[in-house]
């Protein structure tokens, strides 16, 4: 087994790539839409690129032998990631779909979201049943997004709804049709940095201003999660949608104790402003929100990691992820070596299995 100790593994953050962006989606678009995208099939990149070979987030050594970008060949990824590390299920979310947040045109975003989902259902989930999909929706039109959830929500292997965020906090009621549909299908909402933050007028803005380097924008991604978590909790979204669950993928977790404590502290002081919050706000987070492990944080002393895991009740809230094939991916055998059982197994498998409803046939 991949962790070297017989541990079971679910990877909750894996990124498949479509060669040529919209070029690769053309077979999933109607004729008129193919015409519409003629000559403009590239989705835009944030101008601040990682200082790596090719200025890309994708590992150069993950390139499939048959050609194309790393992450673009489901058969090769199965070998290079799933077989190599003994991963039982890999939840796919598309960074290219995240770039829908850059599109100023609602119809285009809606049509592309549909094409992304058809592409992955057809070209990935059918190739290997270990692949699971966080199906994307266009945040531009929540009613259309809800329709898309109802269209693909019952498809085999769809385990979450990836919501690329625009610059509106998640507690805002514009999103409620999306939450309602996701709850109806028992699918958690998954958010992930879209990579467009701070780079486009429609994208999520960073607090305080515009970061000027990749290192800076990569450092402050957690801001986005902090703001959205407070918004969801205090707007009463978890109280309105008692079945709604949320995955915060790749936003880190070391900041979580601070935000939980600060929310509870403020609630003791200002409960009357949000009187629908009738329990400690942190309780909603522990019950309904899950955080992915990658990039595993590297505190000054290893014991601090264990303390943080205890503070965030990691045996319930944390789920393992590699972020393959990105430059900063974590592999199971070198991740959380100091974390004792049974917490380690809960992080690597049980928490995600419960969240996504994933079990091996023997367990069902």
């Amino acid at each position, binding site marked *: 087994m991949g962790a070297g100790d017989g541990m079971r593994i679910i990877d909750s953050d894996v990124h498949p790539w479509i060669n040529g962006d919209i070029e690769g989606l053309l077979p999933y678009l109607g004729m008129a839409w193919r015409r519409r995208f003629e000559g403009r099939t590239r989705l835009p990149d944030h101008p601040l690129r990682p200082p790596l070979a090719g200025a890309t987030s994708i590992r150069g050594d993950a390139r499939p032998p048959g050609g194309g970008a790393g992450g673009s060949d489901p058969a090769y990824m199965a070998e290079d990631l799933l077989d190599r590390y003994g991963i039982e299920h890999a939840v796919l979310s598309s960074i290219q779909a995240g770039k829908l947040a850059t599109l100023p045109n609602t119809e285009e975003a809606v049509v592309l979201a549909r094409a992304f989902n058809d592409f992955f259902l057809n070209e990935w989930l059918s190739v290997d049943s270990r692949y699971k999909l966080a199906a994307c929706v266009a945040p531009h039109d929540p009613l259309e997004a809800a329709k898309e959830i109802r269209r693909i929500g019952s498809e085999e292997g769809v385990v979450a709804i990836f919501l690329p965020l625009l610059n509106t906090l998640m507690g805002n009621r514009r999103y409620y049709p999306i939450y309602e549909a996701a709850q109806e299908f028992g699918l958690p909402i998954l958010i992930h940095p879209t990579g467009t933050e701070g780079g486009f007028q429609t994208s999520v803005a960073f607090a305080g201003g515009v970061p000027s380097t990749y290192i800076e924008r990569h450092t402050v991604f957690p801001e986005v999660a902090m703001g959205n978590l407070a918004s969801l909790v205090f707007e009463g979204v978890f109280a309105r949608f008692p079945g709604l669950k949320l995955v915060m993928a790749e936003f880190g977790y070391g900041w979580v104790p601070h935000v939980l404590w600060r929310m509870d502290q403020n609630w003791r002081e200002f409960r009357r402003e949000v009187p*629908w919050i009738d329990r400690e706000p942190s309780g909603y987070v522990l019950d309904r929100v899950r955080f992915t492990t990658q990039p595993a944080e590297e505190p000054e002393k290893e014991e601090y990691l264990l303390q943080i895991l205890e503070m965030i009740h990691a045996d319930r809230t944390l789920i393992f992820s590699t972020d393959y094939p990105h430059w900063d991916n974590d592999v199971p055998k070198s991740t959380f070596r100091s974390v004792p059982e049974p917490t380690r197994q809960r992080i690597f498998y049980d928490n995600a299995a419960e969240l996504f409803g994933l079990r091996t046939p023997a367990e069902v």
Partner: protein
Amino acid sequence: MEHHVGHVTQIPEREALIVTINGRSIGIFKVDGRLYAVKNVCPHKQAPLCRGTVGGTMLPSRPGELEFGLDGGVLKCPWHGWEFDLSTGECLFGVSDRRVATYPVEVRDEQVYLKLR
């Protein structure tokens, strides 16, 4: 032990008369003719609680709805805004287990008396 505080007309409506008895600072309140006595120290951060305001608050409600109630029964700390039940000293709606001490107070022949253990 019983202490004489003063004439009932000395106690303003919904605002504390703050007295010191045996070195202990205590606020005497009158709301719609009823009297309350509360220790003038917030159990949160030792603020002068009785310099806060008496009023009502928002009752637990459904998301997006507001319902005002408990008018005259809530003492709100002037520092962090913690809310206490004026008669029991408990934090409202279980936001904290901490409570402020309250004391029995009564009026005889228009004179106010406070009982301290």
